[in-house]
């Protein structure tokens, strides 16, 4: 019923996936800080 080897093997996707999401989000956050700095609200 339970496929433990497949579960353990899939943990790499969790690690890679979450790291990937955070890295892209970090790039976006930096870009927004840059935009807010360059184009300040009047």
């Amino acid at each position, binding site marked *: *019923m339970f496929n433990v080897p497949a579960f353990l093997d899939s*943990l790499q996707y969790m690690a890679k996936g979450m790291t*990937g999401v955070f890295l892209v989000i970090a790039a976006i956050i930096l870009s927004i800080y840059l935009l807010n700095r360059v184009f300040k609200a009047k």
Partner: protein
Amino acid sequence: MNFLSELFANVGNVTWQHAVMWCIGGVLIYLAIAKKMEPALLLPIGFGTILVNLPLSGAVTQGEEVGVLTLLFDSGIANELFPLLLFIGIGAMIDFEPLLSNPKLFLFGAAAQFGIFFTLSMARLFNFDLHDAASIAIIGAADGPTSIFVANVLNSQYIGAITVAAYSYMALVPIVQPPVIRLLTTKTERRIRMAYTPGSVSKTTKILFPVLITAVVGIVSNRSAALIGFLMFGNLLRECGVLNSLSDAAQNVLSNLITLILGITITAHMTAAEFLRVDTLLILGLGLIAFVFDTVGGVLFAKIMNLFVKNKVNPMIGAAGISAFPMSARIIQKMGQQEDPQNFLLMHAVGANVSGQIASVIAGGIILNMIH
């Protein structure tokens, strides 16, 4: 007599599986009308479920005879057209200002995608193959079009069940999230107040934001370029200030029309033969796990963040990092006010909530890049 037996010949083709599917359709219609749960989707899905489960229903392909719902599915969902068009409307509806004025909120959108990857592993534990496991996991994106898009690209056989689970749990966010949030936070944490500074974002930033996001996400996660591009195109229509009528059309006419067709078209794959399987129940269970662990990921991330920052974040904001917009943000505001009537968390929660919309598309793209 012959005439009568010919007229009612199809009655003999009714099976108990058809009857069960009619009940499921009826429940979905009831939830849509009586409980007002995502009625724009659950009602067409409910009605379509009854329609396609009439014996030898002409609405779906039977042998050589092409059914209209199968035709719509092949020409609108199998090629990802409808989810993408719907994203233009969703993009036009979203105001990203709360997020742009406090970009840190983006982190909660990222953290609340944890449920997707956790569910992928759980689905593998239950022996789903990798493509189906990833398609089931994307229910945790809490975002219908992304779920349909990813499940379709990965050619999942469970697209009907995945879509129903995604939209049902989005509607059930007010029931699913509060107990998980209460379990993970103390009363004192739920009472944390957060300052909000409106009007600090320039018009230029708002216009450049959708272009920038499209470029960054499209380059890094090329498989989600279409999803993020259509979402951000809709937002650019809204923010540019010179295409108000198009923005209105995207927000209302386009999204209503696509939602209407999308809901009933999905049911082409909700026939008893495809839906009434133990796997389907398992998928519904895994969908719940995805939503619960999205919430867990967001709340715990906020609590960890509070260990390092001076201005504390209300950890409930982390739970709003899921893409179910705007239900999740409303829940956080309501829960905050239950603890402290003077606590206004709505704008922060909206910021985290719209960041979840973008983060879920990124997560979907990353899943496709890793697995497809």
